[in-house]
């Protein structure tokens, strides 16, 4: 799967056939267009990067008219990452998404870069349960909830997703971070803080997938710094049923294809016939 960082797919269709992917999860999409944050929005960090894009997106209507028909040309599932700043907005957006030709919705309760919403719902059991419950009422399509790692007890939050009737949980979103330019004596990002992604966060993500897998029965979509088949296998052993690639797409547009090939290599080497045999066995 491809995650957030993949735009609406077009940018990568130059490089390979998008039909090779199990699914494409769009970048965060909101009810109305969002312009995003002031630059600078990104910076490099050890084995990773910080971003503070601020959910720039053209809004769900534009997506439905312009991007969805493009994505539908490929034999891959399309899951829309949905963002809002209030429960009403999430519900309104998901009512629209329910009418579109998409395969599912991933509720983004975890973007660290917008002042209102998202995170506010994502860091308590009650908040996650409330918004997921309300969305569940209006959405017939598969519902995944993406969680923020910036919480004390990820397993408890994931339980809220399950209790509210969602079909899956995805983790992790970015870790809140900061970089300072020591010569300008100022933060590098205009938004001061941003979300850390890339291989730097992989051990945190694996740990959280492991902890969540112990307490929920719904499938887990694991992510966080995956750039190879070996990385993906680690998440699966920890309990992820599926994995997705985010920042890895930036350094190599073929990262997802190489990851798929790498998983197959591992299965051959380890004499695994069905990948389900290894999910959560650690």
């Amino acid at each position: 799967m491809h995650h957030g960082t993949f735009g609406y797919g077009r940018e990568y269709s130059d490089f390979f056939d998008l039909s090779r992917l199990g699914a494409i999860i769009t970048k965060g999409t909101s009810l109305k267009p969002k312009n995003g944050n002031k630059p600078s929005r990104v910076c490099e960090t050890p084995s990773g990067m910080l971003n503070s894009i601020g959910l720039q997106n053209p809004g769900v209507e534009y997506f439905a008219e312009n991007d969805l028909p493009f994505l539908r040309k490929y034999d891959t599932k399309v899951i829309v990452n949905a963002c809002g700043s209030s429960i009403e907005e999430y519900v309104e957006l998901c009512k629209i998404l329910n009418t579109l030709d998409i395969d599912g919705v991933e509720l983004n309760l975890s973007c660290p870069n917008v002042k209102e919403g998202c995170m506010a719902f994502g860091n308590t059991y009650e908040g996650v349960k409330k918004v997921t419950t309300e969305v569940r009422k209006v959405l017939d399509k598969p519902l995944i909830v993406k969680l923020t790692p910036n919480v004390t007890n990820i397993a408890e939050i994931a339980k809220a997703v399950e209790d509210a009737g969602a079909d899956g949980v995805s983790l992790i979103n970015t870790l809140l971070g900061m970089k300072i330019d020591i010569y300008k004596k100022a933060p590098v990002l205009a938004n001061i803080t941003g979300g850390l992604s890339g291989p730097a966060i992989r051990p945190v993500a694996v740990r959280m997938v492991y902890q969540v897998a112990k307490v929920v029965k719904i499938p887990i979509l694991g992510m966080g710094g995956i750039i190879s088949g070996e990385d993906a296998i680690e998440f699966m052993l920890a309990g992820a049923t599926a994995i997705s690639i985010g920042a890895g797409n930036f350094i190599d547009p073929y990262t997802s294809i190489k990851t798929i090939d790498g998983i197959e290599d591992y299965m051959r080497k380890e004499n695994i016939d069905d990948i389900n045999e290894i999910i959560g066995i650690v």
Partner: protein
Amino acid sequence: MAKQMQAKLLEKIQLTKDIYHFKVQAKEIVEKSKPGNFIEIRVSDQTEPFLRRPISIYNLDKENGILEFIFQVKGNGTKILARKEVGQEIDIIGPLGFGTFKYDGNKDIAIIGGGIGIFPLYELAKQAKESGIKVNTYLGFRNRENVILESEFKNISDNLTIATDDGSYKENGFAINYLKRDIQNSKPDCIYACGPIQMLRAVKQLAEENNIPCQVSLEEKMGCGLGACLGCAVKTAKSPKEAPEYFHVCKGGPVFNSKDVEF
């Protein structure tokens, strides 16, 4: 349409203590490249440094499929890149950027570059000159030690003015002062600029005051270079202050009409 390829380093020239000129075999990229395009280089197959490095194209040798770029060693990534040896392969994606320099229909153009911003202007000047356009070039450097590519730019310019901030070589002061002087006598059809942000702001103002179209090549911190991460935002000129709207340097740019952007 961008390509990813392993491009063999054919020649490596050290221009100053920290500026390198690389020539790589990259036929598929060269064929599709236009003046103003850039490439993204992955300097290591490890995760450190993590991101690719956006680098502008200096010269396109279409006949031999050779792509040339020049870069300054600024941090860890460019330091690793500078260590590559002739014969080694370099992981390149390109050409990138849909906003490129446009010169069709012009007869007389002014090109102004400052410091390491002069590199993407070379291919533009070369192609413009080849198509019979009069090219007036203005290059600014900090001092005598930093002056590079003088003869290269001389060969593709009808007039070349070189200025140093401290007057230690050729004209004294900023290159824009000489452009300003010359446009009193004859207005170019278009001004093309790349260089430090202060210079670009001054050029934008000068062009707009004199009603001369102006194309600027901008820089902003990039994540992917492909238009996916939406990191390299630049404010659009017409959007309201309270709700600024953005273009992205990697996709809408790196070259913009100066009137379309605020920086």
